[in-house]
Every structure is written in C-alpha cells, then in structure tokens.
C-alpha cells in the first residue's frame, strides 16, 4: 500500500478547533460575536485561490461541529520528517531552493508562514517539493483565533518565542531546517520547555549556527559543509531579525550555486492531469467524505458528551474543566482517489480533451432537474471539462458559453461563467484597485447597519472578512456611479457576486457593474419612482397576460404590486430568496436577458395561484410578507416558457439601457398615465405581423360592422364594441362565432390581439376579455389605422356573411 500507490493520494486533511469566546457572547452593538471558526473560514478563502508550484493548493476549508475547522489541501510524496535517508548536498540545495521559492511567493503576498517545519515540507519521488498547510498562521489571524500555540518549538525564532516576529521569523526557521538537513535532527530528546530555553540561550551568542552544531557534537560535520551553505545558514540564523537575509537574497544566493536542476517530469495526462479542484469536487460527488476518513483515522474522536461538560462555570461565564485546550494535532489524513478512478474508469482518453467543434454527445442526465445534475459525478465531469475548455477561450468563445449556460452551469465554475455572460473583460484588477473604497461618506452609516443583516446565514458573508469586502464593493460601486445612490437592497444585490467571487473582489465588482445597467437601469436613481412604477405596471400586465383569472381576482381585492413586489425587482429577488436559490435564478436571468424577471414574478404568482385565488386582501399580503417555499427550478422553467412565448414588444419598458433606435413598426411606447390604467400590454406592428405570418394569433376587430365590412384584417373576427355587455363576463355573450374563435385561440395558445379604431374601446374590451379569463390578450398598438398605413396588404374586403355577427 505504499510508494507505488503514493501518487493516488492527491489530497489530505487536518483538523483543529477554533477558540470559543469565553463568557460574553454579544458585542457592544448587541449582535452576537462572530464565532472564531467563521472568522477563520472567511480569512482562509484567500488561501484557496493561491496556486504555486511549491505550495500545496488549498482545496477546502470546512466548518465542523463545535467550532471544528477542517483544512483540505493537496498532498504529495512524504514529509521531510518521514524521510529516513540523509540527503546529499545537492538534494539539500534542491529542497532549499524550492522551499525558498514557496516562501518568497508567500512573503510577496504578505503571508507569513510561521509554522514551517520538517513535517509540512513534502517531497515526492521526483524531488518535487511543496509546502503543506502553510496558511494556518494566516487563517487564524496570527494564532489569535485558536487556543493552542502554533509551530514546533525547535523551529521557533527567539523573537517568536517572545511573542513577536513577522516574515523574518520564517528565515530563521528556514535556517534551522537547512541546518537539520545537514547535521541531523536538533534537540531530538528534549521536551519543549528546555528547547525554548536553549533557543533563548542563543541570544547572547555570536554565531548561533556553530553553537548549535557544537551542542550536537556535529561541529566537524558542519565545518565540512560547502562554504556557501554555511554562509547561507548563518545569514538565516541571525538573532536580530533585521540582520537576517530576506527570502529574495536567499534565492539569489541559491541560484548562484551550480547544481544540476531537477529533471522535469512530464505532466500527467488523463484524470491525474485534471485540475486538483475538479478532482476534489468529483471525488466528493462520487461519495468521498472528508469527515468519515478523519473519524476512521482517529483525527475526529467522538467522546461522550458528559466528558465535555465543564466542572464549574463562573458567574462571568468562564468555564473550568470539561474539554480542555489541546495542542495542535499534527497528524493528517490522506485521501486516495481510487474511488473516483473506478467511478470514471470507463471514460475514454480523448474525453478528457473535448474539442470545441466536435459534435458532443448529449448526456441523458440533461432531462433531470438542475439540483440533481449538480450532484451527478459523471455529468459534472463532462460539463466541467467542457466549460474549462470554453472559458479558456473567452472572450472569443462567448456565444458558446452562453449556449452551454442555457443548459446549466457547473457550480464550481459559476463565478467564471457569470463573468463571461456579463461580458467582463480587461484588466479589472487594475480598474478596481484605482477606486477609493476607504474615504468615509455619509452613506456609510446606512451601509454599516445593513451589512450585518445581509444574508448572514451564509458563513462567508457573516464573518468580518465578508463584511469588509461587501462594504468595499458597495462603496466602490457608489463612487463609480455618481448618478446613483444607495438604496437598501443594493447590499443584497451585491451579495451573490461576492459569494461567487469571494477571493476575486475585482471580478465581483465588475460583475455588479455590468449587471445593474442590464437589469436595473435607473433603479438606483435618487428619484426612482417612475422607473419602479413602470416596472410594476409592466409586471401587472404580464400577470394579466398569462394569468388572467388570478390577475382579475387580485385587481378585485385591490392587491397592488407596490405592496409586495418592490423588493422582488429592486433586488432581482436577491432580498427574497436564499443564495442557493438566487444562483439558479440568476443563471437563467443572465442567459435570457432583462425581461425574464418580469415573468419570474408571474411565475411566483402562478405557483401560489390556488392559495391566492381563495384569499382576501389580508391573507394575500400576509402570504407575501412571509413567502412560502417556492420551487425555483419549476418557477424558472415556467418563467422561461412565458418569456419565450410572449411577443417581445409586450414587455417593452422605456427605462432600459437599449440605445437601439426604434422603428415606428416596433413602437409600443405610451404615456405613463395610460400605462398605469391599461390592464393589457400593447403589441407592436412588427410583432403582430410575425404572429400573423406564423398563424399564432387571433385578431379581434372591435370596430363597427360597417367599417369591418369595408375592409378588415384577413382572418380576423368582428366583435363590434358597441354591442358588448361589459357587465357579463362570459364569452358566450359575444355570440357563437367569436366565442368559438376565442375558445380555439385559448386551446391553441394563440395570442389574442385587439384591433380597434380608438384606444379607449380597446382598453375596455381587452380588460373585459381578461375578466372572462382569456389569456394572452394584447392591444394592437396604433390600432387599425396604423396597420393600414404600414401593412395595407393584410387587409381584405370580407365576403358578406362572414362578419362574425
């Protein structure tokens, strides 16, 4: 079970407990203190995005029960501590160079390792070296969020023991490790206390390296080392931190050493060549469970709860006894991906490298609900590789990405795909960097009170790291959009982008900046009442168009969208649903475009239809104040159906970012006062013409039969308005022929277009049809007159007797 299978161990986990807050559970603002585990989780997110050849990639940070943190990271070969043989000078230089490379990257990113030791430097059979779990000091805010001391005593620098020290402490440790590699393990038989005393005892020594070597009876061995190696060690083992070499100087020195480079190993192909994050994701989908393995290896022990009860609790909340502080558990559990290999053993080699222009075979799983597809190992395997390919070619592959996103988006790359769908390109880091996100503004108080209430069930968003990021994003957006102001709800709107781009603030910002003009143009104006009113009126029209019975009922009880739908649209539902639902909703919005949200609103009404229909005003408004569980998958499906089956012009809004000049054939704009009273939307002449050509509409001509007989639209039905009893809400009252035509239209899902000579009668009659329960009723914009001017060819003189009366 060893070396030959070693390469199957791709990742490993270790675990520790975060410190629990003693006593006081509330901060001065009355809110509970953020648990340490959540602070750690937030801080550790940055580590997840680090990729460097000499650093083991972090894969996951999990929060377990009782403030437990589980860190999952890449693993290779074995640690220096487990390496039994002594290394040659050449090998030592090889290790040193790679460790220094890793450290340099960390220091350049303002991360201090502080826990470097022989058991977290890993080396594989090819001589490749990587640092494992280098971020524990960083993620625990310098150890302040855990109760145990960090680092192994014999690697601590003197100033670290005295509770200070920055990146220079890593240099000392680096020197100790080099020395150990040369002369063997230091202070092997001593307990921590004496070791620390020995290190502090070095403070008055001129040459600590030699002193240590002498102490270990290895001074001859030490003096036989190549001179450059001795110098290097001595440069590191300086008592005064400022006298130590920097990591860059060390690398410089090492590069001057003339040793042969490690032979390059060909990168593996197939499954082993896939991105580690993908492997980990698939492994989990295939049933891999980090915690189970930790339990099996005894890293998580279940002890009877009674043992963790404190012996005494003081009045100030401090506890005595019970679970006592333990030292950091240095053990790790390694995970084999054999499980995944066997699960994907039937995948052929060339499936790992899908070609863009190759016809893809359709996966059967496509018909399953999205939430199930997201948990299907094989499906995610193909999807992820395919999206990886497409994203690699972005922005040139943008249309392909859109087409694929329409099917679904793999959760692992959702952040990348959203950015692509929103057209985010260019040097967004640079742009974001330039924005002043710190200077206080009068809006800060409002932002400060809103952020601690925004999606706080989400571990990422509720920590202090999340709060700070959200604030910076909001301030940056407000500064770059001086025409807009902060409306409550903007925080919720920003949250999904931040959630998906937690370690990529610039991209979260770029996504938000692209999203607002597309979906919420002018919504955040200081005076946005006209914009919101128009949106709600349009939403109400869409409800009447697709759900006439429900709309009639809601009209009757005077239930207006102003009372409940403002948060829906102002935040694109991000204030209404939890994040795991918002992402599916927005997946669809980003693909379908800005009119889908209107239909999404109708979709929600439709899902609640039965309850709403039998409820009065109070029950209805109560229902929306405390929205019941909504099936988002179903709702999105319905909304997309409605959106695609509706003529484009009926959802026209004037407050959009479309700068396209409108042909008069495409016009449907009416004064706002008119919009607010019209129950049914207007259809443009060109949409109407398309419907006629596709035989998808039933035209009801409500002029007098005299006018109708002179000239009428081919195939239309005549229902002279003057003869309609608006009080009787039955189609039968219209006469047998119109009734048949309308019933047929309902059955065939045709649009019912009201053509009239004047607006007023068209409004009243369309309203009447909605009350009769006829769906898809719209008004021909401009009426018969406009149609005669623009498309006279549609008109015929009806043969007598076919007037519909």
């Amino acid at each position, binding site marked *: 079970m060893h070396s030959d299978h070693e390469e199957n161990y791709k990742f490993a986990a270790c675990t520790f407990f975060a410190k629990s807050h003693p006593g006081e559970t509330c901060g001065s603002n009355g809110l509970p203190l953020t648990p340490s585990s959540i602070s750690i989780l937030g801080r550790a997110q940055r580590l997840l995005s680090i990729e460097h050849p000499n650093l083991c990639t972090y894969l996951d940070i999990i929060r377990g029960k009782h403030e437990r943190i589980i860190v999952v990271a890449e693993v290779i070969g074995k640690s220096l501590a487990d390496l039994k043989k002594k290394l040659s000078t050449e090998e030592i230089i090889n290790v040193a160079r790679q460790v220094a490379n890793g450290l340099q990257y960390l220091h350049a990113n303002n991360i201090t390792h502080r826990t470097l030791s022989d058991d977290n430097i890993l080396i594989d059979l090819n001589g490749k070296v990587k640092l494992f779990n280098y971020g524990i000091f960083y993620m625990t805010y310098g150890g302040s969020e855990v109760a145990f001391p960090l680092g192994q005593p014999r690697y601590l620098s003197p100033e670290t023991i005295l509770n200070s020290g920055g990146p220079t402490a890593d240099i000392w440790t680096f020197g100790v490790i080099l020395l150990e590699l040369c002369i063997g393990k230091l202070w092997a038989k001593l307990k921590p206390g004496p070791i620390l005393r020995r290190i502090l005892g070095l403070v008055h020594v001129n040459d600590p390296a030699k002193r240590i070597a002498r102490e270990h009876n290895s001074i001859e061995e030490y003096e036989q080392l190549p001179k450059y190696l001795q110098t290097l060690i001595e440069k590191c083992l300086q008592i005064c931190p400022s006298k130590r070499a920097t990591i860059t100087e060390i690398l410089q020195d090492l590069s001057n050493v003339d040793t042969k480079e490690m032979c390059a190993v060909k990168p593996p192909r197939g499954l082993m060549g896939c991105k580690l994050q993908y492997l980990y994701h698939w492994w989990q989908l295939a049933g891999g469970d980090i915690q189970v393995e930790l339990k099996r290896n005894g890293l998580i022990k279940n002890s009877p709860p009674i043992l963790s009860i404190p012996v005494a609790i003081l009045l100030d909340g401090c506890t005595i006894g019970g679970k006592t502080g333990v030292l950091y558990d240095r053990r790790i559990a390694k995970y084999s991906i054999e499980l995944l290999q066997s699960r994907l053993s039937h995948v052929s080699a060339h499936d790992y490298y899908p070609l863009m222009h190759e016809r893809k075979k359709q996966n059967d799983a496509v018909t399953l609900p999205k939430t199930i597809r997201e948990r299907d190992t094989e499906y995610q395997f193909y999807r992820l590789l395919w999206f990886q390919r497409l994203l690699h070619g972005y922005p040139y592959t943008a249309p392909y990405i859109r087409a694929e996103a329409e099917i679904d988006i793999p959760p692992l790359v959702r952040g990348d795909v959203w950015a692509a769908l929103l057209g985010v390109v260019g040097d967004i880091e640079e742009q974001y960097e330039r924005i002043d996100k710190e200077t206080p503004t009068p809006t800060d108080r409002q932002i400060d009170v809103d952020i601690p209430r925004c999606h706080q069930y989400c571990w990422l968003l509720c920590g202090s790291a999340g709060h700070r990021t959200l604030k910076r994003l909001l301030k940056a957006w407000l500064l770059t959009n001086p025409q807009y102001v902060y409306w409550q709800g903007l925080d919720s709107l920003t949250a999904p982008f931040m959630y998906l781009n937690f370690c990529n603030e610039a991209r979260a910002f770029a996504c938000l900046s692209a999203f607002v003009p597309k979906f919420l143009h002018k919504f955040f104006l200081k005076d946005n009442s006209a914009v919101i009113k128009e949106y709600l009126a349009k939403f109400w029209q869409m409800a009447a168009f697709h759900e006439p019975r429900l709309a009639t009922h809601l009209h009757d009880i005077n239930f207006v969208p102003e009372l409940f739908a403002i948060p829906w649209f102002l935040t694109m539902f991000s204030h209404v649903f939890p994040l795991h639902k918002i992402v599916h909703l927005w997946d669809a919005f980003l693909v379908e475009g800005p009119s889908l949200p209107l239909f999404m609103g109708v979709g929600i009404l439709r899902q609640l239809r039965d309850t709403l229909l039998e409820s009065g005003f*109070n029950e209805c*408004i109560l229902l929306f104040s405390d929205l019941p569980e909504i099936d988002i998958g179903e709702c999105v499906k319905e909304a997309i159906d409605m959106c695609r089956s509706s003529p484009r012009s009926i959802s026209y809004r004037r407050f959009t970012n479309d700068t396209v000049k409108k042909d008069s054939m495409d016009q449907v704009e009416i004064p706002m006062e008119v919009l607010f009273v019209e129950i049914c939307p207007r259809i443009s002449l060109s949409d109407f013409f398309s419907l006629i050509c596709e035989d998808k509409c039933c035209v009801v001509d409500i002029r007098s039969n005299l006018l109708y007989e002179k000239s009428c639209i081919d195939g239309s039905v005549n229902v002279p308005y003057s003869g309609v009893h608006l009080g009787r809400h039955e189609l039968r009252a219209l006469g047998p022929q119109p009734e048949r035509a309308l019933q047929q239209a309902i059955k065939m899902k045709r649009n019912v277009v009201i053509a009239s000579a004047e607006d007023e009668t068209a409004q009243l009659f369309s309203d009447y049809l909605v009350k009769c329960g006829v769906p898809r009723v719209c008004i021909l914009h401009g009426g018969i007159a406009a149609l005669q001017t623009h498309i006279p060819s549609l008109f015929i003189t009806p043969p007598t007797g076919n007037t519909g009366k």
Partner: protein
Amino acid sequence: MATNRTGAAQRPNGAPQTKVCQFKLVLLGESAVGKSSLVLRFVKGQFHEYQESTIGAAFLTQAIRFDDTTVKFEIWDTAGQERYHSLAPMYYRGAQSAIVVYDITNQDTFGRAKNWVKELQRQASPSIVIALAGNKSDLAAKRMVEFEEAQAYADENGLLFMETSAKTAMNVNDIFLAIANKLPKSEAGAAGAAGGGRRLADGEQPRPSQCCK
C-alpha cells in the same frame, strides 16, 4: 373566513360574542432601530439577531384579547431608510395607530423619530394614537438617549411611551396593549376612526381598499 380566523363569531358553548375590532397600525423609524424585530416578537414571539432589512414594507397581523374585546392589529412594518420615505404615506394613511421607534443607543434615531411624529401629526388621521418606543433597552450600558428626555418629549406631544427590547421581549406586548387600550372600541368610536377599525360580527369581509389606497 375572516371571522373564523379570529375565532370571534362562532363560539361552541354559545357564550356571548366578543367584539372584534380591527385596527391598522404602522411602524415608523430610522433603519436598524428594530421595527421588524418588535413586530416579530409581538406576532411570533421570536427574535432574530440578524433580522434582514425591510424593503418597501411587510405586513403582519396579530390579535389580542382585551376585556371583552378582541383587538386585531393589521401591522404595516415599513422600511427605515430615508429614501423609502415617499412610500410611507401609503402605509400610514388611514392608520388608527402608529409606533414610532428609535434606538436608545443612537441619538440620531431619536431625532428621526421626532420628525416622524411631526409628520404623523400633520398628515395622518387626526385621531391617530401614536406610541413612542425606545428600543434596544437591553443595551442600556450604551444608552445615548435618556429615559427622562424621551418621556418629557412624549408627554409634551401626548404620545404613549415605553422603552422596549425586542431581544428580551421587555415591554413589547405592553406597548401594543397600551395602544389597544387607548383606541376607541365602542362601535361608534371604532367605525369613526377614519373608517378603519370595524366590528366584524356577521362574517363580514374586511374591506381591503382602506389598506392600500
């Protein structure tokens, strides 16, 4: 339906029917002073540390027994941000009662509360019963608004006043009870109050239009 829910119309033991009075109540105040939390505590007996901000408004109802009367509150919980101010009249119009909330740890919110009181006195129904609630009394250690100062202001303006805590539930039910106590519950009085609160004795449907016009 409406009467079934309040349980007033049908009494199996044939006991005398109690009066059911329906009153519209609106909560106003600066954002994050705890308006939604007060309502949640009153209606559901719950408290959420991270109560989300309210956009637009939320609506909840709660009935309390009061002597021989059931008082049913239709509560409009409004958004606190100044920008949503223009929506407020939609909610306080026709309201028989209002709770203006401030945060005792923040002097500015008290100033804002005074403005709300002024606006209500000017624009709302003249008979409106206004209560002033100094919320977050559990944070008395960080108090910035003195009890006496608020009490004096309330007395001057004829307001009910209590310091409340949605977190500990202190005075939450009491302030609603105090309002119920002060509202006219005689048939004439209830009906007279801007046509809002009415007796629902005979299965009469609540008139919705008054709530949203």
